[in-house]
Structure formats: structure tokens, C-alpha cells
């Protein structure tokens, strides 16, 4: 439930994206800082190595020229590094006649000595190697072993780096960082090399501090981001929760529930408005259905009560044949009434479901009207009502039996609710491809408050039980006409009469 909630999923994605972004940012910042630091160390070592080499060269002193003492060079005009040295490197052997073993003590030129103050072990140190690879000199603070200059740590000097050591074959620069030491090796083109190094523990410490700060900042931002995201998600989700709570109550049976959203302009507000109107229609349809069921039950209850009362009464004691006969007749009337009601209910249910198969036959409307008028003639005569027909032959397509059912019903109503010596007039005409049948009486009329409800199921304006009537007739008429894609309308004035208008499209 919680793992599947939109809020949790939103939060997870949000957190994931935030972690990726923060990690990327932190790693980049760290790498930039580290690159910058190492670049600075590199250029510092580079500067010192070159100064050292330069100083050695200018002093003609030690270094590549061999183990001559300071000032041993010819007037400071030693051969440049890129030139073949006149003699081998110191320590390469005994060309200078010195016995090998103890490194010669050489004095650094003053400008170089200032660069390598050996009094502090954390200061820069240097180691010089001769042509044969042997160590020539080292500063006193140099560690016993140089770092191994292999692997991918070669840093080529920038091309615009003014090279102080000749211009034909530049020396090779190598920069390496291992542990907390950084070393820079300058390989001279003609052999021999300088290694300049220093300990970078304070820099690494600072770098670690940067990493720590970045991590802490990242965690804080992530926390704030997730917290803010949770708050935002909660705010965004709240209307959904309101909607879901209201929907749950409605599905639990409380159809009067509505979603109460103050903000009706947002997307969720519009959704809530749509849902609310759906709920309202649902409630109305439900109420209508409930009313219909209740009315149907009511209509069935009365005849059942008649039968039950009548049979219990008759069976209470021995009766005469005439009394039994009367009981049976009463029961028959009740049963007929129930049958009519059940047939009407079934017809309505089928019409509602669109299952009532309507025939598509060509028929003459005038013939149908005349047949219906003949059918109701006895009732009209009984009531002293005249039925006047003004129907000319008119070919329609549809279900003639159903149309006849509608017309008979309308005629019966028109006669029943007429006054004595009243008149019922049926006219038919065609207008714009639509057949119009008008059944007009000059009877009692229907009260304005009842008029909109006459097509409602079980609605009876006078509340009395008309013989055989159950308040479904007009509902069925309307359903039949609508199944023919037509319309049935009513207009009435109390004391003047009622007019029912049937419109049927002629294909």
C-alpha cells in the first residue's frame, strides 16, 4: 500500500534524481578541486625542477656535467644540457678519478639552494641522477626511494611553457603522486635526470576536507530536497485523497457525498467538478431506480393483498357456492391486474435495455389510426365522447403493432380524461420528412405542476386508481416512440384540453 502510493513513488524518483544530480555535482567539484591542486603542485615542482636544472647548468656545477665542485666549471659556461657532455655523468664510473661509493658533496648554486631548504622535512627535496642512472646528489630531506615513474601519470608540459633547457629535444617531464608524496622527474635528453618532490599531506588533508564539506552539503541538500518534495507531494496529493475519500463513501452507499475542493480551477479541481456532476447524475439515477422499484412493489402489493385477504376470508369458514364464486372473481381481477403490470414492467425493461425488437415494416399510418379508433370506440360511446379522425394515407416504416399500442393508449387516455359529450381529434400530417400525429381532447386537462411528470413511471396525477391503469402507459408510449427515433410531447391547459404530439421520422 505505502510502497505503491503515488507519493512514495514520486518521492523515490525525486530522491533518486536528486542523489544522481548531487553526486555528479559533488564528484565534478571534487575532481576540479583535485585537478586544480595537482596542477598547482605540478607547476610548482616543474618550476623548481627547471630552476634547479637551470641553476646547475648556469653554475656549471654538479648535475649532468659530473661531479665537479662548484666553480669547477669553465667560467660558468658549462655545456648546455642538450649538448653531448664532454664527460660522463658523475657516478657513472670513475672517469673523474674519484672512487665510487660515497656521493660527492656538491654545493648547490645559491638560487637553487633557496628552493630546497632541507631543514624542514616537509619542504621540497631533490634527487639527481647521472647518465648511467646512478644517484649523483640528493637533498638531505629526500626520502630514501623515489616514486616509481610508471603508469599513466605522465604529464606533458604545456606547449607554451618556455623551455629553458634547449630547443631541439625537450626533456621529458613526468609527474607522479603516490601516497602523500608528489614527485616530478625531468629526464634530460642526453641522459641524467632530476627528481623534485615534496610531501603533499597538507594538500591531501585539505582535499579530504573539501570532500567532507561537499558530502555534508550534499546530504543536507538531499535531506532538504526530500523533505520539501514530501511536503509538495503531500500538498499535490491531498485533493486526490479528498476525491478518493469521497468516492469511497459513495461506493459504500452514501450517494449524497460530494468532493469538497476549494480550488476548482486546477486540473484536480476540474476532475472533482466532473466527478461531482457524475455523482449527482448517479444519485439521481439511483433515486429514480429506487422510486421505480418501490412503485412497482407498491403496485404489486395491492393485488396480492386483495388475493390474500379474500382467500383467507373465504377459507375462514364454509361458504356458499355464490360466495366462493365471488372470491374467485375477485382473485381473478387481482391476478389480471398483476399480469398487466408485469407485462408492462417487462416491456419497459426490454425497451430500456434496447432488447425489444422493433419491426421495420412499411405501413399506412392512416389505417393504423382507423384501427385504433375502432378499438376504443366502445369506450368512447360508453363515455359519450366523439372521436374525430383527420388522417390521410401516409406510408411509414416501423413497427405498426407498437405504433398502434401507443395510439390506443393515447386515445384511451383522451377518452378517459374527457368530459361527457367531449371530443377527441386525431390528425396526421407530414412536415419536413417527419410524420406528425396529434391526439387532442377537450377534456379536463393536466395541471401545470403535473405536466412535466406525466411521462414518469407510475406517475398518476389524480392518485386514483383508474381501471386497469397503473401509471406506466405513457412511459411505455414514450419508450416505444423513442425506439423509433421519434418524440412524444404533451401540452395541456386545465379546463381546455390536452394535446399529445407524436413525431415519427419517415425514412
Amino acid at each position, binding site marked *: 500500500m505505502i510502497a505503491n502510493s503515488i507519493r512514495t513513488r514520486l518521492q523515490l524518483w525525486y530522491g533518486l534524481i536528486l542523489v544522481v544530480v548531487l553526486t555528479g555535482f559533488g564528484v565534478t567539484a571534487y575532481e576540479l578541486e583535485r585537478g586544480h591542486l595537482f596542477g598547482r603542485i605540478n607547476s610548482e615542482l616543474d618550476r623548481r625542477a627547471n630552476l634547479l636544472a637551470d641553476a646547475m647548468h648556469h653554475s656549471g656545477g654538479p648535475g649532468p656535467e659530473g661531479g665537479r665542485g662548484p666553480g669547477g666549471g669553465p667560467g660558468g659556461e658549462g655545456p648546455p644540457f642538450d649538448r653531448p657532455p664532454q664527460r660522463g655523468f658523475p657516478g657513472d664510473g670513475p672517469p673523474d678519478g674519484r672512487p665510487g661509493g660515497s656521493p660527492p658533496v656538491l654545493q648547490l648554486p645559491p638560487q637553487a639552494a633557496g628552493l630546497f631548504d632541507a631543514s624542514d622535512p616537509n619542504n621540497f627535496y631533490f634527487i639527481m641522477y647521472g647518465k648511467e642512472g646512478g644517484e649523483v646528489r640528493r637533498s638531505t630531506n629526500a626520502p630514501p626511494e623515489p616514486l616509481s615513474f610508471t603508469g599513466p601519470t605522465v604529464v606533458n608540459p604545456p606547449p607554451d611553457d618556455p623551455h629553458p633547457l634547449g630547443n631541439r629535444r625537450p626533456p621529458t617531464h613526468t609527474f607522479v603522486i603516490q601516497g602523500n608524496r608528489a614527485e616530478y622527474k625531468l629526464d634530460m635528453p642526453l641522459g641524467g635526470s632530476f627528481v623534485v618532490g615534496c610531501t603533499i599531506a597538507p594538500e591531501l588533508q585539505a582535499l579530504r576536507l573539501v570532500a567532507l564539506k561537499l558530502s555534508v552539503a550534499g546530504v543536507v541538500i538531499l535531506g532538504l530536497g526530500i523533505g520539501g518534495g514530501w511536503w509538495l507531494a503531500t500538498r499535490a496529493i491531498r485533493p486526490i485523497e479528498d476525491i478518493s475519500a469521497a468516492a469511497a463513501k459513495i461506493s459504500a452507499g452514501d450517494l449524497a457525498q460530494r468532493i469538497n475542493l476549494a480550488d476548482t480551477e486546477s486540473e484536480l479541481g476540474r476532475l472533482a467538478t466532473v466527478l461531482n456532476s457524475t455523482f449527482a447524475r448517479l444519485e439521481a439515477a439511483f433515486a429514480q431506480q429506487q422510486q421505480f422499484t*418501490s412503485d412497482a*412493489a*407498491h403496485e404489486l*402489493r*395491492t393485488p*396480492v*393483498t*386483495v388475493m*390474500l*385477504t*379474500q382467500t*383467507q*376470508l373465504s377459507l*375462514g*369458514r364454509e361458504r356458499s357456492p355464490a360466495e366462493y364464486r365471488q372470491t374467485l372473481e*375477485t382473485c381473478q*381481477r*387481482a391476478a389480471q391486474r398483476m399480469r398487466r403490470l408485469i407485462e408492462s414492467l417487462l416491456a419497459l425493461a426490454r425497451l430500456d435495455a434496447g432488447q425489444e425488437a422493433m419491426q421495420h415494416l412499411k405501413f399506412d399510418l392512416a389505417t393504423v389510426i382507423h384501427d385504433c379508433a375502432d378499438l376504443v370506440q366502445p369506450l368512447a360511446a360508453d363515455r359519450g365522447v366523439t372521436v374525430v379522425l383527420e388522417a390521410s394515407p401516409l406510408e411509414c416504416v416501423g413497427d405498426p403493432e407498437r405504433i398502434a399500442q401507443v395510439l390506443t393508449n393515447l386515445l384511451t387516455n383522451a377518452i378517459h380524461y374527457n368530459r361527457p359529450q367531449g371530443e377527441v381529434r386525431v390528425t396526421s400530417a407530414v412536415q419536413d420528412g417527419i410524420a406528425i400525429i396529434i391526439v387532442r381532447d377537450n377534456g379536463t386537462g393536466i395541471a401545470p405542476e403535473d405536466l412535466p411528470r406525466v411521462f414518469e413511471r407510475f406517475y398518476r396525477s*389524480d*392518485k*386514483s*386508481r383508474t381501471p386497469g391503469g397503473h401509471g406506466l402507459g405513457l412511459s411505455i408510449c414514450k419508450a416505444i416512440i423513442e425506439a423509433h427515433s421519434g418524440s412524444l410531447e404533451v401540452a395541456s391547459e386545465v379546463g381546455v384540453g390536452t394535446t399529445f404530439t407524436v413525431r415519427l421520422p419517415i425514412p
Partner: protein
Amino acid sequence: MRLLIVEDEPDLLASMAQALREEGYAVDTAADGEDGLFRAETVDYDAIILDIMLPAMDGWTVLKNLRRAKKTPVLMLTARDQSRDRVKGLDTGADDYVVKPFDLPELFARLRALIRRSANRTTSRLEIGRVVIDTAARTVAQDARLVEITAREYALLEYLALHRGEVVTRATLYEHLFGDDDDTLSNLLDVHVSNLRKKLGHDFISTRRGHGYCIE
């Protein structure tokens, strides 16, 4: 006991009226609300059976108007069994409620209970000295032996027993024992009283000259 039935379904009205007459009640009938209200206001019925769905004036309105003037026990009869309808009926002043379709014995029992309550009785047994009247079984026993008695005699006895100690006038007895449709010969009441005295003892019903009858 005189009853009024207000019901618009003619078959139901006829069979209920017949069944209740056979139970010994004097029964008047009305087929719509207006007629029902008029009768209920004019005559002191012992109980009224009132349908709700009525032409001219519905049962609620009849009941509301009747309650302004009278406390006659009313049994509502309806085809709607939703509880809010029942609540509305009872709140409007109905004394009981029967939902269609009902069983006749149940209707009878509810009517008896209604009449009994209105006479401030709680059981269906009335004991007057050696005579025991069972209003549920509609039997009369004296010294634990059943007494043969006609429906009209029973109705007279029950009415007097329910109003024990009161002097009941001849007019009241006529009103409660005979419906509109009954032939009421002026001496019919004397015949019934005389028959009851023969069966239960001469002193059982006393006559107050110029006033009426009484069971002490």
C-alpha cells in the same frame, strides 16, 4: 366495536369489511380520504383502518386533520414498508402500522391490541367475577365452562366489559355495535341484553333507567 375502513381498492375494501364483520365488528367503509375524514370526525369509532395512498386526500392528511379533534386509535395500512414511512406515520399520530400484503389474523390481532390499549387494558383476558372473556379467541367462559354466545352478543359484552364500572348509554352502544349498513331495530339492543342475562345471570348487566347499561 365499530370500525371505519378507508381504502380505495374496492375489492380489498369489500373483503376486509366482510372479514371484520364476521369477526363481530360493526364496520363502516370509505373509498377516499375526504369521505373517510368526514366519517371519522362524525362518529366515535373504536378504531380506524386507514390506507395511505388515497384519492382526494391522502392518509397522512386525513390523520393530521383527525388528530386535531379526536384520539380514535388509527391503524395505518400501506404498501410502502420503508422505515421512514413508518416513522412518519407513527409521528403523525398513527397508533400502529400494517404493511400490505398482510395476513388477516395479524390484522385482527393488531386491531384487538389497539382497542385494548385505548381502553387501558394490557391483556386479552377480562375477568369479571366468575365470567372470563378472552378477547383474542372471542370466547366467554363462566366457571371455566364455555358459554355459547353470538357475535353481536359478544360485541355488546366486550364493549361493556371494556368500560366496566361506567354507564354506557344506549346511543353509544348503538353507535359502537352497529355499522351504517346494519338494520337497527330499536329493540334489538334489548334483545341482546336479555339474551346475555339469560346466559350469564340476571345481575351480570345492570340497567340504569334513563341512562343505559353497566357491568359492575
